[in-house]
C-alpha cells in the first residue's frame, strides 16, 4: 500500500494572504459572538504589525491541490499565539497539529518562556493537539460587558427576535431598574404586539411591571442568568403576579444565546 499523501501543507505568510485570512476568520467564527473582522488592513495592523510578531512567526496552511488558504497561526515572540484558526469545512485534525508544531518550533527558537494559545472551548482538534503537546488548560482573562445605551440594545435584541415576539405576545412591559449607572435610564418600556416591537424610555401605558437591578437585567440579556433562575432566587419582581410566566417567556426570548469567542489578538 502506498504512503498517504498529506492533503495540506504549511508555509510562512506572504503579502496578499491578508484578505484570505480575514475571510477565514469571519467564516471560522461566524457562529460565535465577538469582534467582527473588519478588513484585511485591520488584520494587518492587528497581527502583522504587532510589536512582538515577525513574519517568520506567521504560518499559513493551504490545500496542496487547490492552493486555498485553510488555516493560519500567528505566534508572537512574547509566547502568545495571537491567532490559531482553520477552515471548519476542512480537516482540523490534520491542519491544527501542523500549525501548532510550527508555532512551538518557532517560539522555542525565539526563546519564549511559554506558549499561550486561546481557542473556543468546544474545538476538539485544538484541544487534542494541545493535550498531545503537553499543554495545560488555563482560565483565560475574563471578558466583561456593560451597556452604554440600554434602550438601543433592548430595541436591537427585540427586533432581532421580532417575529417570535410579535407572534406570541401582546404586552407593554415597564422595566424599572435599580442601581443603574448614571447614563442608563432607570425606566424603559417594551411594547410588543402584532403591529411590531417598540422600546423607549418615554412613558407608555403598560400591562406588566418588572422591577429588578441593572446587573440582573444585563445578566438576563447577556445570557449568563436564566429568567427562571432569576425568578426563583427573587432577583426580580413582576406585577401583576398573573403575568409572571408571560414575562419569563419574553425574557427567555430576548436573552442572547450566543456562543462567545474572543481571539487573543483582540486582547493585547
Amino acid at each position, binding site marked *: 500500500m502506498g504512503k498517504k499523501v498529506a492533503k495540506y501543507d504549511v508555509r510562512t505568510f506572504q503579502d496578499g494572504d491578508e484578505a484570505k485570512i480575514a475571510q477565514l476568520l469571519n467564516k471560522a467564527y*461566524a*457562529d460565535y*459572538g*465577538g*469582534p*467582527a473582522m*473588519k*478588513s484585511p488592513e*485591520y488584520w494587518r*495592523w492587528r497581527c502583522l*504589525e504587532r*510589536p*512582538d510578531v515577525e513574519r517568520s512567526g506567521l504560518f499559513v496552511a493551504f490545500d496542496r491541490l487547490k492552493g486555498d488558504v485553510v488555516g493560519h497561526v500567528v505566534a508572537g515572540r*512574547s509566547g502568545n499565539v495571537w491567532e490559531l484558526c482553520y477552515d471548519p469545512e476542512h480537516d482540523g485534525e490534520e491542519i491544527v497539529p501542523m500549525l501548532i508544531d510550527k508555532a512551538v518550533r518557532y*517560539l522555542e527558537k525565539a*526563546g519564549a*518562556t*511559554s506558549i*499561550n494559545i*486561546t*481557542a*473556543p*472551548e*468546544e474545538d476538539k482538534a*485544538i484541544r487534542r493537539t*494541545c493535550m498531545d503537546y*503537553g*499543554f*495545560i*488548560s*488555563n*482560565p483565560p*482573562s*475574563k*471578558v*466583561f*460587558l*456593560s*451597556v*452604554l*445605551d440600554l434602550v*438601543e*440594545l433592548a430595541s*436591537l*435584541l427585540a427586533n*432581532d427576535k421580532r417575529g417570535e415576539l410579535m407572534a406570541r405576545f401582546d404586552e407593554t412591559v415597564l422595566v424599572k431598574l435599580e*442601581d*443603574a*449607572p*448614571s*447614563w442608563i435610564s432607570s425606566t424603559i418600556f417594551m411594547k410588543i404586539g402584532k403591529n411590531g416591537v417598540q422600546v423607549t424610555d418615554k412613558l407608555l401605558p403598560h400591562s406588566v411591571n418588572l422591577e429588578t437591578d441593572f*446587573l440582573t437585567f*444585563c*445578566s438576563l440579556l*447577556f445570557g*449568563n442568568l436564566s429568567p427562571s433562575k432569576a425568578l426563583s432566587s427573587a432577583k426580580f419582581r413582576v406585577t401583576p403576579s398573573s403575568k409572571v410566566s408571560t414575562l419569563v417567556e419574553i425574557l427567555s426570548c430576548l436573552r442572547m444565546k*450566543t456562543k462567545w*469567542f*474572543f481571539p487573543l489578538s483582540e486582547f*493585547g
Partner: protein
Amino acid sequence: MAEGSGLSEAREYSCRSLDKRDEEEVKRLIKNAFREFLDGEYWDWKYKQNPDFDPSLVMVAEKDGQVIGCNHWLLKDLRLSPTLEVKAVLGADIVVNPEFRGKGVGKALLVSLRYSEAVKRNNPVIIYMFADANLAQNFYTPTGGYVPLPDRTVSYVKILNWGKVKENARLLNEEISAGKFKSRLAGFELKVLFKIDNAPALCFYIAEEGIQVSEGDDGCFEDADIVVCSDLATLRQMYRKRGRKTNLFRATLTGKLKFRGKISKLLSFYRNLWIIEQLFSRRVI
C-alpha cells in the same frame, strides 16, 4: 455631563480628551503600569497606528498640568449573534498614577468618556473589556455596571523554559547580595530538583550566598537533596495567591505532588518554602 465638569473639578483635577502634547506622559503611565507585557512599550502600535484609533476616545485626567490618569476606548463592531452586529467600544488601557489612586480618578475618567462628544457622535451600544476578576468586582462592576460574559474561550499553556524563574532568582540574588535575608539564610544549603511533566527539569541550589538555577537534563543534579515531582496544573494551583499552604497539603495528600528526600532535608525545605514561592512568583505559570 460634559467633559471637565463639576464631578472632577470638585476633586481638584479635570478630565479632557487626549491632546498631542499628552502622548509622552500617557506612554509613561502605560509603561509604568504594564511593564510585564512588551516592557509596556506598545502604545504607538496599539493606538496611534491602529486604523480604528480616535484620540477623542482617550480621556486624560490632569492635575496642575500633569497627566495623572488615562482611559482608552476603541471603536469596534461586535457580533451579538450570527444575525446581529452592533457598534461597541473596547474599554482598553486605564491607568491612574499610584499617588492618585483611591480618589475617584478612574471613575471620573470612565464617566467623562461616557458623556463625551466622541461617544455621542459614534453612539456605541455596548462596552466590553478584558479584566482580572478581582479588579472587575472591586472597580468595573460598581462603577460601570459590568457583568462577566459567559464566553467559551479556553487558554492552553505550555512551559518551554524556566526563563522567568531565572529572572526571579536574579532579582532575589540582588536582594541577598544587598544583605537582605541574611539571618534567614544563615548556614542554609539545599539542592532541589523539580521534575514537572511536559516541562524541562528545573534545579535550584540554594545557599547563604544566593541561588543558582539550572534547567534541562544537562545542568541538573543527580545528587539533589529533594526531588519534587508534579505537573503544571498542580503547580499553578499551588501558586495562586490564596491558600498556598492548604493547596500544597492537598496536592501532597492526593499524590499530585510528590517529594523525595531525607526527612531532615524535607523539613528544611518546608521551613524555607518562601524562597520557592519567590522563585515562582510573577506569573511564571
